[in-house]
């Protein structure tokens, strides 16, 4: 499968900008050195720059945040808020005060469900999600709808796996209270027309939440242009640390939210007994407890790392790998790809192989140093509608190259022969 000359030129340029050498696990660890890591939709490896930032945060700058009156505490607080500013620029928000540090995309979405929707939903209201949502953007809505007697409405998919907006009749109707959509599906790899949905929703005054967990690392993204009200993602899927994520909430929406967690640092005045307490202004109201400063700094370092390569370029690189994977996998007898040629490529390929269970595919691949995922990918509603129990999935990141794709295709073909 020779690459075109154009592709090869791009690839050469790319690999002088970034390579496995920048990622300690892939470069020099016993378990990772020879690994073709293609489970990036689950979590990505960390460049040295991010690991070093975390290290430095603990070794040179560590201190309580927003609480101390000594120079170290001032410096740490400054760095923490600087990280918020970096991430503000990264997503194009109008103000840093619209960014809330959470533990993860999952917490971000639960915060909106419990802190915003709970007080607003009434029996008969509708919350809209799509058929392709990750459980993190499905279960919180299912739970709050159950509690409030609201309806959980599903945007179904067209035959080629895209949002069937035409069939979602009441999406912008009078009972629609919130639309919660992923920007890129973690199974299909589809990119959804978020901007269009936001524009239509805004015209009817319906807020939109965007699950950007799979997109933020490689799609140029600007929340103001996108027009969304909420946007959620995790650091660990964008080359950053675990245990930290973000919720963007437009100022107006942020004003309407109640905290998910209450505790230290977020209260202004504590009422006696059960007299109401008052919360502080700004995003700190949603960050109860001691701040995760090293996490925030690592998060911002990951954003810087992405910006240094450019999301446009990263996206191109991932699309090339995805295209290559589709071509090579497509040649294996019995393979079924879950995405259609009519849908633009992103960074994910899901597939099944006739007669071989996806778990066996992943296991055989694993034994051959190719790390892919098998299962329902936390998207049971989607898999059920496709009448599948599980699929195999390969997903790409900046450090992957064509040799990873080739190893994948070989491993799948080997599995076919093993079980054939």
């Amino acid at each position, binding site marked *: 499968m020779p690459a075109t000359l154009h592709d090869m030129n791009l690839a050469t340029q790319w690999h002088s900008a970034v390579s496995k050498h920048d990622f300690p696990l892939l470069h020099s660890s016993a378990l990772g050195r020879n690994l073709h890591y293609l489970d990036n939709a689950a979590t990505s490896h960390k460049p040295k720059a991010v690991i070093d930032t975390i290290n430095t945060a603990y070794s040179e700058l560590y201190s309580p945040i927003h609480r101390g009156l000594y120079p170290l505490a001032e410096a740490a607080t400054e760095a923490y808020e600087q990280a918020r500013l970096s991430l503000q620029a990264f997503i194009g928000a109008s103000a840093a005060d619209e960014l809330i540090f959470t533990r993860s995309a999952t917490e971000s979405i639960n915060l909106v469900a419990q802190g915003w929707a709970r007080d607003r939903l009434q029996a008969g209201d509708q919350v809209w999600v799509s058929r392709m949502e990750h459980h993190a953007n499905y279960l919180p809505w299912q739970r709050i709808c159950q509690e409030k007697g609201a309806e959980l409405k599903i945007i179904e998919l067209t035959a080629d796996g895209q949002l069937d907006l035409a069939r979602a009749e009441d999406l912008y109707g009078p009972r629609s209270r919130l639309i919660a959509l992923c920007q890129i599906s973690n199974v299909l790899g589809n990119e959804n027309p978020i901007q269009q949905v936001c524009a239509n929703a805004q015209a009817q005054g319906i807020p939109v939440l965007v699950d950007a967990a799979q997109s933020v690392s490689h799609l140029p993204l600007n929340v103001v242009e996108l027009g969304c009200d909420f946007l959620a993602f995790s650091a660990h899927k964008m080359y950053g640390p675990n245990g930290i994520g973000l919720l963007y909430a437009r100022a107006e929406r942020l004003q309407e939210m109640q905290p998910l967690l209450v505790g230290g640092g977020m209260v202004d005045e504590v009422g006696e007994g059960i007299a109401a307490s008052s919360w502080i202004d700004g995003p700190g109201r949603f960050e109860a407890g001691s701040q995760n400063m090293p996490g925030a700094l690592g998060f911002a370092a990951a954003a810087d790392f992405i910006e240094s390569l450019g999301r446009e370029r990263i996206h191109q690189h991932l699309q090339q790998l995805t295209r290559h994977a589709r071509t090579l996998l497509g040649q294996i007898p019995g393979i079924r790809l879950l995405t259609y040629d009519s849908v633009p490529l992103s960074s994910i390929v899901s597939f099944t192989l006739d007669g071989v269970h996806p778990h066996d595919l992943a296991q055989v691949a694993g034994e051959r140093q190719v790390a892919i995922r098998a299962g329902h990918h936390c998207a*049971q509603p989607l898999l059920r509608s496709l009448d599948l129990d599980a699929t195999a999935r390969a997903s790409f990141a900046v450090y992957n190259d064509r040799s990873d794709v080739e190893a994948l295709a070989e491993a799948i073909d080997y599995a076919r022969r093993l079980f054939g």
Partner: protein
Amino acid sequence: MENKHSLYKDTLMKHYRQPHNKCEGEIEGADIVQRGANPRCGDDIEIGLYLDQKHVQVDQVKFRGRGCSVCIAATSMMTQAVSGRSIEDVRKLSAEMREWFHNSDGHDIADPPDDLQALDAVREYPARRRCVLLSWEALTDALDRI
């Protein structure tokens, strides 16, 4: 194709390709039919127990369903291992199997009957334990209903 570091030992592959006691349609005439499902993996099986008249012995176990090779092979091995044993023995073996897989560093089953020893390789893959144990758990649930 036997590979020392592979899960896919010959015995396992043999049971997967030609499972013992597997029905294609419904399980007919069994004393107890019990489902075992793991929605997280999509493994979904049904086992049928045929007991002796006094209900002290498991004459045969049949199964049907779908799952990965480990699930199917382990279920096949299970049916082979327990058919013809006293219920008491089956309970003991079932407990031992679970013990064996939950303490992967622990002791081995003294004398694992039939082909069960071939599952040893799976113990190194905690993520697949559930695939092995699914049928044993269904078996225990079935025995609890006697």
